[in-house]
């Protein structure tokens, strides 16, 4: 298979697309697993896009695109900003905190909990998407 593209696309529920570096996006365990061509599990992203594949892994891995039906555009934008902020300051000390607008922080908290969740079990994901 060809080498992995350097950039991936994250699409929000209201159809905003964000093209980010793969290395930054893979900060999130969920995204990393979605984009990993070696993973072979029933895709969870949404029922419209779900394809049970036995060979190539997720649809997301082939198209290098992840759809998030439960994350809005504004929140996803902040998430992408955080990914770059994290990458930039990976080894730094006394890093200044990223600015988080209070209006957004609750949704951002839920999104970050979703994206960092370590266990991509089907039930877990289904519950989250249903939430």
């Amino acid at each position, binding site marked *: 298979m060809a080498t992995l593209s350097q950039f991936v696309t994250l699409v929000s529920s209201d159809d905003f697309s964000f093209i980010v570096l793969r290395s930054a996006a893979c900060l999130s365990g969920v995204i990393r697993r979605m984009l990993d061509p070696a993973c072979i599990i029933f895709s969870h992203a949404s029922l419209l896009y779900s394809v049970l594949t036995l060979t190539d892994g997720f649809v997301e891995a082939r198209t290098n695109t992840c759809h998030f039906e439960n994350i809005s555009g504004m929140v996803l934008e902040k*998430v992408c900003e955080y990914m770059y902020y*994290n990458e930039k300051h990976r080894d*730094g000390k006394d890093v200044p905190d990223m600015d988080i607008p*209070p209006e957004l922080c*609750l949704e951002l*908290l839920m999104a970050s*909990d979703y994206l960092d969740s370590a266990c991509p079990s089907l039930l877990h994901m289904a519950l989250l998407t249903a*939430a």
Partner: protein
Amino acid sequence: MSGRRNGNRIRGPQSALTDFLAANNISAAQIRDDHERRQREARNNGEGSSTAAGAEATPAIGEDGADEDVVERDEEEEERVRVESKKRKRKGEVEALEKIKKAKAGKGKGKEEKGKWKGKGKGKAQGKKGKKGDPDEDDDDGDSDDDFDPDDLGRDMYKKSRPLPGQFEHCEICSKRFTVTPYNIEGPDGGLVCTPCGKELKKDVKAEKKSAAKQPQGRKRRKLESDRLDGLVNRGAKSLQQMCIETVAKHHDDVEELGDMPAPLVERLSQIFSKQRVLKPKTLPLFLRPDLQSVVLHDAAYLEADDYKQIFAVVPNVQKLVLGNTCQMKDEAMEYMLERCLKLKHVQLYASNLVSTEMWEKFFTVMGGRLESLALKWLDNALEDESVEIMARECRNVRRLKFKLCRRLGERAVVAIATLPKLQHLSLQLSRDVSNEALISLVEQRGPKLLTLSLEKFLDADETLLSAIHDHCRSLQKLRVSENDTVTDAAFTSLFTAWPNPPLVFADFNATRDIDNNNSDGPLEDPIGLGSAGFTALMAHSGQALKHLDISSCRHIDIVALSEAFCSPDAVYPALEYINVSFCSRVDTEVVEGIFKACPALKKLVAFGCFDVGAVRVPGSVVLIGVPRAREGIEQFGGYFDGGGEGMQGLEIGGMAVEVSA
């Protein structure tokens, strides 16, 4: 006369009024000069200075209120637009007019001044005006012509000077009319503001100053250490969750509801709110949702009796209830809870001192077989031994039991607890004396099934207890025997030698030592407390499965045992995550380095009072707390590990050791 004076000035057109004045021997120019001189003086004396110099504002041309305002504004505009001389002339004209009026009315000087202070009519914001109609002064002021300063005049023209106390002025912010006092402050554009707006401004300024104020020295270092104690590593950027939680905590006043947040996040938020002491009746509803199964509030100190009822009303299906600092919980709240919450299984109440003993007994009776775990701390006057006996009789399904700092419990409680058939986790810290026999009988009866046994501060428990544990406990995972000054090292050794119990996961033997001021090193031949032999036996028995190890204040563990345990080349403890070696004076740098090498999963190493620990390389994943000689903080070097890919990178040997020697 006028010709001389007007020699070096811009000559503007003479108005009819000026002519008229001249005809009455009043010089418009001279009036102008007086005015300018006084303005300059006023500026030099600063704002709001006393106006005893007798300045006064011209009562306006007989208008009031809005008209004056309009006139004022018009005049300002006109001032800006017009040529200097014209403006001066205008001022002069008005002054002259007023002078005429006064002259006509035949008022004396004194009355004029009084009139100024009463502030009749709108103050014309021209600053101090000269006393009119004083011939002596006129002559004196004539000399001031030579002090003519074009810059001053320019400034005067465009700057609106401060009205005197007693006059009316419009507030810059809210445009309300108010009486000027010496205490009114200036608004952002230079004009005066009324008192309420002034208070607001002052508050803003104060808030700004507070936030910009220099932090006391050492605060940054303290914050660093505090974060480290909480486990927040200093390295790299904070996680997004962490930052969001901090933002929420900062703006806790504005949060209205938490929406659909998953339960673990709600719990984390409630922890942060409790830590910052903002869990109040106002913010309480955020954490109560009808669908929740557990309510966890670690600091319920601000909640009042009705709030407890609210909790039980909103969340009737609660199964797990954890409330800390429940100082205000009363009997009625507990009644209500017993009525409403029929699914309640796990109860943890700390410091609920207003609940009476009868209520506790009723609680046990009503809950009966429903109760599966109970944790009570800090009960001073309620909960007697009899209550525990009732509990043992009624609540036969109790699996988890924790009684700490319950002052009234003693031996009979222990005897009663021993009869609970399903007990798996037991944690006791009692103030009253409990005989060894009771403890032994407890261990004998419940030992085989016990998973957790924590006996703190049983000062007189001796080796018979440990041998009972050795003989009867077969499934222990967590063992804590702390703050004891009777058990000898030999007893510990025999506990861990040839013990059929599987390896412990949690071992805590802190403060097992004998404190005797006459013999400050403790008996050296037969050491009391966990010593070298005991420690070695412990590590031999449980080293492979141990996750949490606490040997603080075990002063008889010597360097040989520590080195053997941690520094020998094949020592590996794959599960150890937390080690506390505080106040073990023999721990030194080598031991610490050995610990880092031997424990790949280590997260936290607590080493208060270990004075021999010096410069040490700390791997990136470990938090090292409490080393007394760390000044700038011990530098952390080591592998950075990628979140999902390669797993933990090893410890880079060859990094620099940094330490600021004391």
